[in-house]
């Protein structure tokens, strides 16, 4: 490796050795020479394909986070209910997310997204243009699931406009029955409930015919069920108001539905809407809540293989819940339809209205009917949510106006441009011609980062937020550093007197190792941060990790091949003073070295 092979006494030998060295390299460089073009083509094709995919997928820009696009972002932290230490787990959190999604999107909020973050947080992102206050109220409150006795019910809205005439009722009979039965007795035959099949909605319709003529008739209905949990006074103003509300309720109107049951205490009777099994909206007058969602221990959708009754939902109650449930079912069973029904009300909406034939005392119950699998699972999930032993607390609420979001995005982009510009200037000054490799590499890296961010938006829900922008800007340094390591190695080799092409091939393995080792550390930091941390830190860690990976890809598939190709160019190979590889400039001055080490006897050794 010493340097001037031709001039020193032992010159021949180094030459030979050089050949030896070159020999293994030949295989290498042969492949390297066929490879650079291929790698370049590969990465360019990859970029083209990804870009194509980006446009095809219809997301040509990265999805922006709330802090850049404007909107409200709410972080909810789950808390265990007392006595339930291990309630924060993935299943419970996922159920909670489902329900919250249902609530937020029930508001008519478009594209609100709800997702878990870390082990115990739920992030709700509500884009700008929606009433953030209302949305906050929706997610901020704990979901309320109650079992309320049905006092009266009828179809509602324009679909049901014909229903006031009693004749219209007969249509929906038979198929629409939900019923609750006790599953405590092993054989289904033992439960008398199996007998009363053709009731449910059909009967409901019949009643509706009764109740329509005047509000008063249904008012009379509620006090009449003597044992029923009806409001305290029989004909107090509250009841009259309830009746008025019931008469006026139009469940087909989404806005009306969203408002229905707002602010009603569980101990008060209320009106509510729900969809019946034929998909029509049905309105209800409901008594005070008898059993609440927290009384349910668990719920599941099961396929009944024994009686071939299809999908059903089973519920287990807690000990206090069993008692309450036994009480209410005992009372309800004595009543006529629809007052033998109870409504399962989630957030003011009736999700199911099974009827009861007998007191169910076993601490568990099942709801059967003509459920499809999804229907049964949905209902079970809703019941589960009531049973979730979790409460959620708002940890942080960030509201960003669209104006500020745009400004921050703008500032981030300018900062990135300035940063990139400064780095490019530095590279040009210091590395001159080599910056012809460094700058395209940076650009390729930037393009890949952008495209991947755009693609990851729809696929994994990645949203570009301010910390992520910071991460990307910081990553410019890491990416540029890989080139610096590589270039410095090449320069080392040139200082030793090698010509450019062998210098590149020799420098690469070492630079490669350094790049891999240091990128690994950087990636490790990003990965640990991403897994462990929450909130904004995570977005940052994600981009940092992504760009570190891309850095490796770009250096291997783009920078190195490009260097190999350009090394053949005369401009670089001859060490033009602007190429950044001028041996003289780099200090490869054999005479100087010789004078410095006059006594070095063996410095002719090529290695």
């Amino acid at each position, binding site marked *: 490796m010493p340097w001037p092979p031709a001039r020193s006494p032992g010159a021949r030998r180094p030459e030979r050795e050089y050949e030896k060295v070159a020999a293994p390299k030949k295989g290498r460089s042969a492949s390297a020479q066929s490879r650079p073009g291929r790698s370049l083509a590969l990465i360019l094709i990859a970029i083209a394909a990804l870009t194509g995919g980006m446009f095809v997928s219809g997301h040509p820009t990265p999805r922006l986070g709330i802090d850049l696009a404007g909107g409200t972002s709410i972080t909810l932290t789950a808390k265990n209910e007392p006595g339930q230490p291990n309630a924060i787990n993935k299943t419970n959190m996922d159920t909670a997310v489902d329900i919250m999604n249902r609530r937020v999107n029930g508001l008519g909020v478009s594209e609100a997204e709800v997702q878990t973050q870390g082990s115990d947080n739920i992030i709700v992102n509500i884009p700008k243009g929606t009433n953030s206050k209302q949305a906050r109220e929706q997610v901020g409150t704990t979901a309320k699931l109650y079992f309320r006795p049905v006092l009266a019910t009828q179809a509602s809205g324009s679909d049901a406009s014909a229903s006031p005439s009693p004749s219209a009722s007969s249509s929906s009979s038979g198929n629409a029955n939900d019923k609750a039965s006790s599953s405590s007795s092993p054989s289904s035959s033992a439960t008398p409930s199996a007998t009363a099949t053709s009731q449910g909605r059909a009967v409901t319709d019949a009643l509706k015919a009764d109740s329509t003529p005047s509000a008063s008739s249904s008012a009379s209905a509620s006090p009449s069920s003597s044992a029923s949990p009806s409001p305290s006074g029989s004909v107090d103003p509250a009841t009259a108001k309830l009746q008025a509300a019931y008469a006026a309720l139009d469940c087909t109107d989404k806005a009306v539905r969203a408002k229905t049951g707002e602010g009603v205490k569980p101990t008060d009777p209320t009106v509510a809407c729900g969809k019946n099994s034929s998909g029509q909206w049905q309105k209800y007058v409901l008594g005070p809540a008898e059993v609440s969602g927290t009384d349910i221990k668990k719920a599941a959708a099961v396929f009944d293989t024994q009686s071939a009754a299809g999908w059903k939902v089973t519920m287990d109650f807690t000990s206090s819940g069993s008692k309450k449930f036994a009480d209410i079912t005992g009372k309800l069973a004595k009543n006529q339809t629809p007052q033998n029904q109870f409504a399962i009300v989630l957030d003011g909406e009736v999700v199911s209205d099974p009827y009861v034939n007998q007191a169910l005392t076993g601490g568990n119950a099942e709801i059967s009917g003509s459920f499809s699998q999804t229907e049964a699972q949905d209902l079970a999930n809703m019941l589960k949510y009531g049973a979730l032993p979790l409460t959620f607390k708002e940890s942080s609420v*960030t509201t960003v106006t669209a104006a500020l979001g745009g400004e921050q995005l703008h500032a981030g982009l300018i900062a990135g441009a300035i940063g990139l510009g400064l780095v490019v200037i530095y590279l040009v000054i210091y590395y001159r011609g080599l910056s012809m490799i460094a700058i395209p590499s940076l650009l390729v890296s930037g393009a890949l980062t952008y495209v991947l961010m755009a693609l990851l938006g729809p696929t994994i829900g990645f949203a570009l937020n301010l910390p992520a922008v*910071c991460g990307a800007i910081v990553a410019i340094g890491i990416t540029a550093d890989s080139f*610096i*390591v590589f270039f410095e190695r090449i320069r080392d080799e040139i200082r030793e007197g090698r010509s450019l092409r062998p210098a590149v091939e020799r420098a690469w393995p*070492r630079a490669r190792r350094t790049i891999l080792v240091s*990128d690994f550390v950087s990636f490790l930091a990003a990965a*640990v941060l991403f897994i462990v941390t929450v909130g904004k830190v995570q977005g940052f860690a994600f981009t940092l990790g992504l760009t570190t990976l891309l850095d490796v890809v770009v250096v291997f598939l783009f920078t190195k091949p490009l260097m190999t190709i350009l090394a053949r160019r005369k401009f670089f190979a001859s060490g033009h003073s602007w190429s950044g590889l001028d041996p003289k*400039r*780099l200090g490869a001055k054999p005479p100087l070295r010789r004078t410095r080490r006059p006594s070095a006897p063996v410095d002719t050794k090529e290695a």
Partner: protein
Amino acid sequence: MSKLGTLGARLHRGEIGYDFVGKRKIWYGISILITITAILGLTVRGLNMGIEFQGGAVFTTPKHMSVSVTQAETYAQDASGHDAIVQKLGDGSLRVQIAGIDTDKSDQIKETLSKDLKVDSEKINADLVGPSWGDQIANKAWEGLAIFMVLVVIYLAIAFEWRMAVAALVALIHDITITVGIYALVGFEVTPGTVIGLLTILGYSLYDTVVVFDSLKEQTKDITKQTRYTYSDVADRSINSTLVRSINTTVVALLPVAGLLFIGGGVLGAGMLNDISLSLFVGLAAGAYSSIFIATPLVADLKEREPQMKALRKRVLAKRAQAAATGESLQSRVSEESYDDEPEDAAPAVVGPRNQPASRSRGRGRPSGKRR
């Protein structure tokens, strides 16, 4: 520009050689001093924790507010019943910070405030943080820090050796202490952005250290087979030879961060960009310093305690004494010479056949060569 180029080249040729390892005591001293100052600052002054860590609300109004700061302060205090801090930002918008309020009450405060300031409440940016959220972020960050340190020590111990792992860890803790200390002393506000910046320093500081260690490992591979240089000499050469890269890396890393800082501080006035870039800036500078002045000398120190290395040092010193006696003058600047072949050995993929002659030649005199 050519000046820069030649400076780089001179650095590389060892013409600018600095005895990092030899003068390590000075740098250790300086670092210990800085660390003590940082710890003192931390205990005496404490960190100025932002609203995100105390719980509270930050409201930012639209631009060009006509209301004065004191007026806005009064409004905010009336609305919340708590002390409020109001800042006027560069673009004329107001930043109202109210500590210690609950997230539930914030809506109400926002409404009142928007009425007082005569702005549409939907146009006010609000950042409401529950008191436990900041703790959660901070705790998770510490957790991440701890896990990362353990993993990185394991990784470095495997990829290099435990001494390097220890030295890297010391350097890392050193960087973080200094950064935190500067925050305490200057009184910069600590926000989640600061934490992000601090955590990035982890990666970066080690990144830098790892590159120096990589070169050190290469060059010391066969150190016991020669008698010219002690471990410290080689370590010194490693630092000097990677100095150019370290400087370039730091400059290149600092440039974008400087861009961020300029934009974050100059244009936006305050916020995430500013917080991240400030702590990054401080941390990066500390990181570059520590990998050169602390980590590598520390490795050399640790290594020199190994019996093998002690023996080597004895041999080297003996040889040097002998050489001096026989009048054969060695170069005075050891670091100028390259203790060379090793680097090549370390790249087996290329240099396979070269190794033998290299190691044969090693014992005798100075193989010429390659400077790392």
